[in-house]
């Protein structure tokens, strides 16, 4: 307890303000998601009682066994003109739950209320969707707190840079959608430049190390995008199954390329900053270090990071397809078909990102050496 008090006294005025601000944001947002029913147009009902009515066993055409359940739900309406009234709902769900789910007491649901129910009788309706905003918010706060506890100041800066990047991305997409004449790739190129400059400056500050990393990142992403384009052009996109981009109202090829572009950016940035910090670190330790020595140690560092980085991208991309792969396989689709339908785009993204990562190693090395030499000439 005493340690806590002394720690508390050590806090500067600025830190106190910051902590209070975060605490206020946290409390306010939690209260908000618990009482934001009136902000939604759709009626929301909170489950207060469930009753399992019926269980049937079923076997589908591929011999998969499953159970179907029917539950009667009593829920209280939380907003709109029927607020406070009791609503009766029926829900059918399976034990696998691919597109349905069992509802439990406390779940909040978006519903539509049947209009034909007469006065005095109880209201009935159907379930539209689940209210999930609470959980997204909780996880977001856990994320913020853990980043702040572990990363302290750097953690705060990374949260800020993530938030700025998210807003920027959303704004860039808005521009594209409002004016489809402008090319998505042009918009993405501009945003990529902004993303890079903002994230690297925020994380590393204004210095030669950062400038070298920015240049290396931009060169690395654009060169790898160019290679990916070239390959798609030479092969005329053979082997890529765009069927997977089901929900798409736009030219899918461009959208896919833009995804490749943005997706590999983070990894390329990571490589660029690792290369430039280690090269500058070697120079700071020994101002007379030869260019040759810098090159060998740079390549050594590069060798160590390229494997893990490509693996990060690989898993981030591929894991999202797991449920779909399982669905295909359980519906007796042949393995080859399943893989090419579901993974071709993800694999292409991962491979293109890997090319960007590996290319950025020499690019980052040489730009850093160039900046080191410039610094040397000046001093």
């Amino acid at each position, binding site marked *: 307890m005493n340690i806590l008090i002394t720690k508390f006294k050590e806090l500067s005025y600025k830190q106190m303000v910051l902590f209070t601000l975060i605490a206020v944001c946290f409390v306010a947002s939690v209260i908000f998601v618990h009482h934001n029913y009136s902000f939604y147009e759709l009626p929301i009902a909170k489950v207060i009682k469930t009753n399992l009515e019926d269980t049937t066993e079923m076997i*589908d055409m591929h011999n998969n066994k499953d159970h179907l359940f029917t539950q009667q739900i009593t829920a209280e309406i939380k907003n709109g003109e029927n607020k406070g009234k009791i609503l009766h709902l029926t829900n059918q769900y399976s034990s696998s739950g691919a597109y349905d789910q069992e509802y439990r007491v406390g779940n909040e649901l978006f519903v539509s209320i049947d209009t034909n129910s007469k006065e005095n009788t109880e209201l009935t309706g159907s379930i539209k969707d689940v209210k*999930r905003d609470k959980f*997204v918010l909780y996880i977001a706060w856990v994320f913020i707190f853990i980043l702040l506890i*572990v990363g302290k100041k750097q953690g705060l800066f990374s949260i800020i840079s993530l938030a700025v990047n998210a807003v920027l991305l959303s704004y860039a997409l808005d521009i594209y959608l409002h004016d489809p004449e402008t090319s998505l790739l042009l918009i993405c190129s501009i945003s990529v430049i902004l993303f890079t400059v903002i994230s690297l400056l925020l994380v590393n500050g204004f210095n030669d190390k950062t400038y070298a990393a920015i240049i290396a990142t931009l060169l690395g992403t654009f060169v790898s995008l160019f290679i990916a384009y070239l390959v798609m052009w030479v092969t005329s996109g053979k082997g890529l199954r765009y069927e997977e981009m089901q929900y798409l*109202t736009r030219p899918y090829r461009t959208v896919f390329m833009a995804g490749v572009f943005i997706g590999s950016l983070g990894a390329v940035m990571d490589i660029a900053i690792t290369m430039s910090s280690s090269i500058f670190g070697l120079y700071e330790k020994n101002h007379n270090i030869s260019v040759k020595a810098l090159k060998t140690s740079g390549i050594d560092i590069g060798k160590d990071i390229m494997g893990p980085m490509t693996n990060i991208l690989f*898993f*981030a991309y591929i894991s999202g397809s797991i449920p779909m792969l399982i669905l295909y396989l359980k519906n007796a689709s042949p393995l080859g078909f399943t893989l090419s339908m579901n993974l071709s785009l993800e694999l292409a993204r991962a491979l293109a990102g890997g090319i960007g990562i*590996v290319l950025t190693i020499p690019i980052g090395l040489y730009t850093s050496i160039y900046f080191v030499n410039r610094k040397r000439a000046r001093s």
Partner: protein
Amino acid sequence: MNVLVWLAAILLILMLLIGGKKGARSFISLFLNFGVLLLTVLFMTDPNANPIILTLIACAVISCINLFYINEVNSKTITAFISTIITIGILLFFINIVAKNALIQGFGEEEVEELGVFSLYIGVDFAKIGASMIIMGTIGAITDVAISITSPMREIFNHNPLISRKDLFTSGLSIGKDILGTTTNTLFFAFCGGYLALLIWFKDLSYSVGEIVNSKLFSAEMISILYAGIGVALVIPIASWINAYFLVKTREKNKISNN
């Protein structure tokens, strides 16, 4: 020729040119990891298998490949391995609760329209599969952070053999702080790139903010990104502590045997 073959060939050549032997191993590790992932998916199609346990096993095998195959078996990679497994265990425990309550399993209504020909009643537990999907997305990043902490800590220990356990732990944390920002950034952009089509779709159909936040696809995606960030942040103190503990313990043991 197929796009994938071309891209893979270019990647292989670049990795060999720049990384030599280690580059070759990095390339092969991608294929091994793909194989492990595929096997896991095949095992998951068995309704009697528990996807959570399968994920834990798969993560152990994948971190063996990433740590012991690309590098080699030594004290650095062993502590990195232990920290990875502990972190994954903690993450799996909590994701189970989140996935159950947020009801994000399976497919969104945006996807289901296209799945009309498929039978959705296939007997496997999609809530658990959703949880393991989120965990698998982070495993690459977690092993990477773990090894990036344990290997410089080892260097620090070698330079100051008398360093206390607490100082060693703090130095591990400060290394971790530097990686935290760039790794969360990497994951953020990777997920955004992967979901760009979905984002455009939401905007195109002018979903309201409320509809987007509550939709299954978006919230599942957000939870994946944030959870990956949480995992990356969590592995930093775990790896620092375990590494500090083992390094000092072996030093004490050696001291006793020397006396």
